């Protein structure tokens, strides 16, 4: 009768086999490679980042160059289309592919900068509320409730319109508006970390509150923080596109995907591809960022490691 034995290290070395146990990082890497959503999301992000970084090399034309002679050219798969302008041109005769490529710069730049402002505000608030509790928590929770009650898009549109639309204004307005999810998530995670023994140990060892927060609490928040950061970049990109679509975001002639959809709206009847193309670009990037965020959450979650 065969019995199944547990192979211990000693047993293995007796048999002349070397058993290598994977490190936590290797396990995480393995589950990353196995997670389809994570892979798709990471691939999309890498492609878009490369597209933005290499825009001057990749773009076949100047995204700003207007020409009457090349107005409204069809795409390569339509009748009379040519490889000279693979995605055709818009109503000003600008190469659509080049504008899409340069548009990725606008989306990523705004997405990341807005996220950084929002993360700074939201994480600080969540950290203080979760760690100190009591009155601090009451104030922060109240601020979160107030922020959620304000209609974000409407407030952003109004403030951008009054301050004058520019990329800088859009970044600051959105950054100061969408810190809510950071605050909510970080507050909850800090509340979970606070009663941990290593926090008590640090306190017993006489560490200052600042040191406990920076050296003990924040490193243990990182997983959750990275997930929210990824998802919030997506939200910021979506909001920028919506603002630009409403004409209160990035100003023409900057190639922003949301603005391109807005400009193509009048030609919707005859040239629907002018709307579909930037929309697909936006959709793929947002889908990628969301899948990446969900993927990181699954991969870094303790139960996901087994």
């Amino acid at each position: 009768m065969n019995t199944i034995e547990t192979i211990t290290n000693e047993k293995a070395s007796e048999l002349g086999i070397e058993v290598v146990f994977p490190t936590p990082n290797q396990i995480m890497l393995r589950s990353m490679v196995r997670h389809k959503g994570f892979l798709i999301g990471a691939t999309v992000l890498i492609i878009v980042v490369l597209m933005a970084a290499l825009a001057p090399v990749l773009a076949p034309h100047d995204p700003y160059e207007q020409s009457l002679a090349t107005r409204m050219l069809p795409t390569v798969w339509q009748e009379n289309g040519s490889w000279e302008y693979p995605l055709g041109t818009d109503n000003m005769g600008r190469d659509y592919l080049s504008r899409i490529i340069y548009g990725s710069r606008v989306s990523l730049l705004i997405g990341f900068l807005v996220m950084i402002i929002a993360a700074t505000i939201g994480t600080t608030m969540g950290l203080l509320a979760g760690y100190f509790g009591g009155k601090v928590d009451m104030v922060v929770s109240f601020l979160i409730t107030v922020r959620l009650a304000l209609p974000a898009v409407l407030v952003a549109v109004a403030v951008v319109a009054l301050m004058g639309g520019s990329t800088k204004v859009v970044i600051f307005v959105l950054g100061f508006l969408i810190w809510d999810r950071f605050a909510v998530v970080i507050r909850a995670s800090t509340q979970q970390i606070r009663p941990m023994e290593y926090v008590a140990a640090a306190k017993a060892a006489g560490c200052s509150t600042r040191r406990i927060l920076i050296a003990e609490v924040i490193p243990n928040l990182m997983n959750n923080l990275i997930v929210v950061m990824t998802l919030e970049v997506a939200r910021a990109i979506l909001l920028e596109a919506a603002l630009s679509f409403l004409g209160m975001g990035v100003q023409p002639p900057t190639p922003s995907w949301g603005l391109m959809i807005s400009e193509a709206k009048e030609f919707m009847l005859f040239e629907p591809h002018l709307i579909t193309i930037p929309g697909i670009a936006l959709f793929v990037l947002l889908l990628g960022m969301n899948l990446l965020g969900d993927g990181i959450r699954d991969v870094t979650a303790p139960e996901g490691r087994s």
Partner: protein
Amino acid sequence: MLVYILKRMGLALAVAVAVSMVSFMLIRMSGDPAIALAGENASSEEIEHIRTQYGFDRPLIIQYLDWGLKAAGGDLGESPYFHLPVKQILGDRIGVTLTLGACALVFALVISIPMGVLAAIRPNTWWDRTALGIAVVGQAMPSFWFGLILIIIFAVHLRILPVSGSDSWRHYVLPTITLGYYATPAFMRLLRSGMMEVLSSDYIRTARAKGLRWPKVLFKHALRNAVIPVVSLAAVQLGFMLGGSIVVESVFALHGIGYLAWESIGRSDLPVVQAIVLLLSMIYVFLTFLSDILNAVLDPRIRMM
């Protein structure tokens, strides 16, 4: 229960006051309202005249109190563009937005409840994956783009629905789908996880063990409990949808307050913009209050807290 309601009501009032302050300050501090009202080509005397006429020369706190107290009494000022009371303008338009919000909410629930339940009782099957796919796609699709695609398909190519306007029920079909689709992922996820949790509980096993039929167990015992959190989410989502109506209404030129806000921003009609921000926030505060109360009524455990 009464203590709970009073507590919640106090919080809602405090939030309402804070929100009114923020919406007032945001719009007042983003630029000089006198210049915005007078227009770009106005002379400095004209701007000064408007400043004193509207009271913009007073301290900000006095202006806020003046505005806030009047608003609490229902007086939202006058629109310099229409030369009509703001209250009257909003009253004419709010019906469209509320209709759209209600339709979108119903649409989202009709889609997500069966999908969420099916996904929960058949996890990791084709159904479950389709539901998940719809949720993931829904979160990544910009609503304004989705709306335009619907217009291209149903209004331009198939010609079965109107492109824009708000004259008949047919004008609401596409905006309802656009706005409602945006809310389905949240409902679907909540129902799926709620249903799965309930289905694995002891009382469902007991109900099955005593020989009750599966549909009865599913609908009477399980769904009833899984739907509780959905009710409160519905109130919150309705608030979000009304806030997001500015985008959808602009796409379809639906004459609700979202579209009005967009137009008013374009023509610097500040009292109207301010009133709409305030109104939408107040509706949200009211809906979250309602959702807390509903939660307590439906789930006795919360009342004890």
